[in-house]
């Protein structure tokens, strides 16, 4: 019973917390209603000079794998290189939403490739989480969290 109450409390915490964050985001008109969302360039800044990012014009492996338009330029100051990518085909409106729901949004794959490119160029590796050797057990609140975290490795500001 104690565990059930604690579980319900954790569920409420997770649910309400996430709901508030989502609500806060929804109040930002630019983030929620960007008409250019499907065609925007996704950018990442790599702390390496351009000639190390794409020597002889060859794209780094994670980016070479995906079907994307790619451009890059030197970043201002001493920040390295800005790499930009976006899908060649833009899925706007309901088509884009459905693709995201089906897990087939090409922007997700490109976002992951950009993040991995940055990490490989800067550190020589892509860090793996201890979640691969789990110590956790399934619970109802955990399932809610799993849904929220399921795509967390693909997200994040680039």
């Amino acid at each position, binding site marked *: 019973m*104690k*565990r059930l109450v*604690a*579980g319900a*409390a*954790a569920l*409420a*915490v*997770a649910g*309400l*917390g*996430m709901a*508030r*964050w*989502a609500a*806060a*985001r929804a109040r930002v008109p630019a983030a929620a209603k960007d008409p250019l969302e499907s065609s925007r360039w996704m950018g990442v*800044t790599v*702390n390496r000079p351009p000639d190390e990012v794409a020597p002889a014009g060859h794209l780094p492996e994670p980016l070479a794998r995906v079907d994307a338009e790619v451009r890059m330029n030197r970043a201002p100051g001493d*920040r*390295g290189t800005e790499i930009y990518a976006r899908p060649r085909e833009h899925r706007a409106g309901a088509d884009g939403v459905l693709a995201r729901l089906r897990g087939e949004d090409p922007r997700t794959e490109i976002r992951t490739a950009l*993040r991995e490119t*940055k*990490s490989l160029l*800067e*550190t*020589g*590796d*892509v*860090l*793996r*989480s*201890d*979640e*691969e*050797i*789990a*110590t*956790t*057990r399934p*619970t109802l*609140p*955990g399932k809610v*969290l*799993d849904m*929220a*975290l399921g*795509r*967390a*490795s*693909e*997200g*994040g*500001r680039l």
Partner: protein
Amino acid sequence: MKALCWQGVNELSVEQVPDPAILNAQDAIVKVTASTTCGSDLHLLGGYIPAMRAGDVIGHEFIGEIVDVGPEVSRHRPGDRVVVCSIIGCGRCWACRHDEWSLCENSNPNPGVTDLMWGGTTAGIFGYSHAMGGFRGSHAEYIRVPFVDYNAFTVPEGVSDLDALFASDAAPTGWMGAELGGVRPGDVVAVWGCGAVGQMAARAAMLLGAERVVAIDRYPERLAMTARHVGCEVIDYTSTDVTAELRERTGGRGPDVCVEAVGMEADSTGIQRVYDGVKQQLRLEQDRPIAVREAIHACRKGGSVFVLGVFAGFVDKFPLGALMNKGLTLRGAQQHGQRYIPKLLDRIAKGDLKTSYLATHTMTLDEGPKGYDMFKHKKDGCVRAVFRPWA
């Protein structure tokens, strides 16, 4: 192996879990010899950080011995006695290169969570929820340390485990609050909170040249410990009007630098505690910013406020008017520990900085749930409970 696991809100247990493994070539496995409770763990325990799964291993402030390294580790080898920074940095992104290690861009494998919460991805942290990367904590017999060349520091000969332990988090966090808060020789500094981090912030302010340092808390034993070991002035907020007292002690100006070392579960004696408590329980605000409000009001015009306490989300009744009209500088951060740990180990070795007295209770790992109960409820004067997994 044995580990202390979060099982739900206010529920911990010691469990057998799979051993950690080297997953990346720059990893090491560390045999944990001492791991301490931290006030920020209480936010996980209380369910205020909503990204924990039942079975997650907690703990992030620790010392140990390296027992295995990946093929690309160059600065450490098995047998090294190391203190490990609680924040994981890659060492090579722009943020790490500029000594802003808690903003590392490559050490959080779950970047989507903090981006949604805060509009940006922050570094991974050991044992601090899946939002911070889902890394296992240090209240265990062994722990995997990613990018070990950048995150582990060899402990000098002659420095005890209990002294070096607090160089993992409490000491560098406190030092950062004083340094990035802008403490200069001759300043008057006020520190809210006499836990380990607050005491370290007060000591750092003194070592950075502050002329007067005043620490604020409600627990007599913590106030006495701070006065005795740090050597600064103290105020008991349950019997004193803090803002009035600080004005009286500073010629009416207020402190030049205010360091908040309390966090999202701040207490007070007034109506604010009821107001924020109700709103927090209803999740109408995530955090109780009582000490932050007071620091902003108490700070001198043109002064600086540094937020060291952990906050997760939104707060209510934030005194933006005072901040703007008094021309204050407000800053905060998770600790950039790698920036400070080598210097702090030197200071500890020289005797400038004493830390082992913070370990008021030393226990076995099996006593973990009891240790957190004592720590949370400040039983028996507990400031920090330290677990010795191999004792």
